[in-house]
């Protein structure tokens, strides 16, 4: 194989890694904030799916993909808002509730899909968002193709990740959020509204999931199919854990996971010895090993998944 061919293979591989990663990074960022505030949402799958559907719906109705994105974001936010009512106000079990959200989202989106778009042999294509190159930057050799010939969601992620790091560690908001997840009682006594912050983070999570859904259905596939999220919500959760609840490392974890996903897609084509199944297992296996071996030092927010209630309530 010639050098040029090998190079372009690698470049294309990295390009698709980024493209795959954005679907994980966006919900991952939202979940980092939500889990830092003490709530674990395994219903991300459902929120992304809902976002994907409403994104297509919005685009189909108005012909504008941008409207679709707006629809997607609102839909995602509403889903997680309902989740947070059940989990924060009613103090229901977070895992079971998250699972319920996934189920409801699956049922509802499949139903609405049939209802509105009918049963089709060929999926309906809607106005989507095409990738576009960033002028000047996209002409840089190697990096230009990998980083700057992507779609708008990827560019958005480039901005959001550093923003997330900044907000988390350099603003009073981040300080409050982390306090709420570490020691909600202490936060409460200094006047921080634990419930309100958890709600806010849930909505943030929903917005990010909505964006990911829109990226999936409007940018990458231009259509909606039932259950199209295919476990990305759970990979995002693994990235949050493997990234130790830190937006920067979680993003790196997401990239690593996306890299294995991109690899296994290619490997299938080439029939190389390493099984694609094995590759797909890696994210979860590594996360398990990390959590099991580092135990106490893989410290999750102390109040994660425990409901908070004031003693006087």
């Amino acid at each position, binding site marked *: 194989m010639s050098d040029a061919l090998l190079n372009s293979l690698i470049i294309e591989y990295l390009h698709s890694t980024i493209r795959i990663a954005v679907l994980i990074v966006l919900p991952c960022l939202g979940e980092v904030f939500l889990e830092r505030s003490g709530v674990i949402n395994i219903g991300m799958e459902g929120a992304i799916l809902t976002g994907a559907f409403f994104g297509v719906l919005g685009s189909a109705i108005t012909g504008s993909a941008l409207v679709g994105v707006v629809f997607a974001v609102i839909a995602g936010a509403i889903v997680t808002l309902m989740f947070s009512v059940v989990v924060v106000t009613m103090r229901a079990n977070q895992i079971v509730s998250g699972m319920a959200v996934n189920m409801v989202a699956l049922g509802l989106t499949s139903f609405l899909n049939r209802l509105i778009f009918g049963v089709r042999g060929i999926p309906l294509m809607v106005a989507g968002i095409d990738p576009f190159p960033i002028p000047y930057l996209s002409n840089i050799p190697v990096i230009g193709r990998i980083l700057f010939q992507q779609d708008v969601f990827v560019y958005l992620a480039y901005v959001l990740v550093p923003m997330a790091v900044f907000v988390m560690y*350099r603003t*009073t908001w*981040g300080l409050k959020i982390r306090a709420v997840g*570490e*020691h909600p009682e202490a*936060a409460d006594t*200094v006047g*921080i509204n634990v419930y309100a912050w958890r709600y806010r983070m849930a909505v943030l999570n929903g917005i990010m999931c909505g964006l990911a859904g829109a990226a999936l259905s409007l940018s990458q596939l231009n259509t909606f199919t039932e259950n199209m999220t295919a476990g990305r919500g759970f990979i995002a959760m693994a990235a949050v854990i493997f990234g130790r609840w830190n937006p920067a490392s979680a993003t790196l974890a997401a990239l690593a996971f996306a890299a294995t996903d991109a690899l296994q897609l290619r490997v299938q084509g080439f029939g190389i010895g390493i099984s694609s199944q094995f590759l797909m297992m890696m994210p979860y296996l590594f996360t398990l090993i990390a959590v099991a071996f580092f135990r106490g030092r893989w410290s999750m927010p*102390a109040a994660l998944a425990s409901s908070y209630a004031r003693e*006087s309530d």
Partner: protein
Amino acid sequence: MTNAVGFENIIKRFLGVVANDDISLAIPRNEIHSLLGENGSGKTTLMNILYGLYRLDSGRIYVDEQPVQINSPQEAIAHGIGMVHQHFMLVPVYTVAENIILGQRLKREPLLDLSSAEQSISDISRSYGLGVDPRAEVSQLSVGEQQRVEIVKALYRNAKILILDEPTSVLTPSEADELFVVLRRLKEEGRTIIFITHKLKEVMNIADRVTVLRGGRVVDTVSAKDVNEASLVRMMVGREVFFQVDKSIARPRGVALELDNVSVSNDKGKLALKNVSFVVEKGEIIGMAGVDGNGQVELEETILGLRTVDSGDVRICNQSTLKLRPDEIIKRGVASIPSDRERTGIIGAFTISENLLLKGWNDPRFSNHTFLDLKKIREYSENLMQDYDIRAPRSSTVVGHLSGGNKQKAVLARELASKPIVLVACQPTRGLDVGATEYIRQRILLERDRGAAVLLISADLDEILALSDRIMVLFNGEIMGSVDSDHINMEEIALMMTGWRAKDLENHESVNVAFRGNSL
């Protein structure tokens, strides 16, 4: 002289108890005022109301002579009130500075600018000699240092009135002295300090004036100059009448429980028991008097095998229990009535039968290795219910629905039915009505007459005096003295509970009663 804080007819109720029963009190500015009282006297409740953590049921609060409504700690802080609790409200993974500015409006919000805060914290720390490093991570600090962080936290928020809830309970004596230096400094500056405590020595050391609370009411407010420890004790404890119980003479027959130079650390790493040694013989009741927080819980846990000792030995019938698991210790004949009934004594969602089974699920009478003999268990439960006067329709009633007295009787039934050799009874009648209290005390005496070795750990002096054959006092993890119950009275016990040693009582002239041969 304006008052910093005023309380007018404050009433506050909790489940079944009136914690503050019509309290009226004024605390002038610029003094160190101590709230003194036993457990349950209402002092912490009153301060929690002032700090906005509890809502009062009726009454009025005045700050700087203005009537105020305080519904949250935020509002209290806005009125210049700061509080340092017994359980610190600090986020362990944060630095000191991060903890202190949490919830505060910063100059360049939302930017987290710690540098100016760190500067202020260092300034405050220096001017009061608090020695707090704003960059240190809280989880790495000692308990004393964490407390000083809490103080700086209050000062940073411009607290003019500073409430401290039992501050020295977590401090070593030298740390306590340092704290007092700080408090005097603060007073010189014009701040008002309210100091909740049950330790008389501290009151005499630092307070300008003292308010004694008892049973939710104010006994009196006096100037510290005008009283001594004995008179304070009389105010704290004051009852002339106590439950008379017919008690036969004890006939101790051999050592059942022995603690030999035991030292134990609590969860925070501080020594909770220091070289504690005592014995309890079969057929006698040893009353271990002491206010909560002096090592009682750790003592209970050590005897039951739930906490490992740092040094020393624990022996049941002359055999060491250090290497035994809790269930093995129970098998040796140890029974316990735990101090925290709801948490460790019963399982509220279980039925009476199931609770009674907590001590017998692998007893061959009730289970043949795996299967429970439900019929036998039910019969057993019904017999116990009758023997111990547990009032419920049947043994399948859920224990959570019973009254406090019946719950405790269920605990008693369960523990005593196994005819234990050693019984550790911790605060057995706390929170119970008169009838249940009588009943339980009678039962404990019966056990002693049956030949059990009873260790009664209690903060209720009535109870200690009425039941014990021999009385010891636990203070700060040490045994202050061991005296025959005929040879001591309530005031003397109370003094020991605040740090006096038995031998000191003999010599001190301010103790106004004859030491020997005096009954109340």
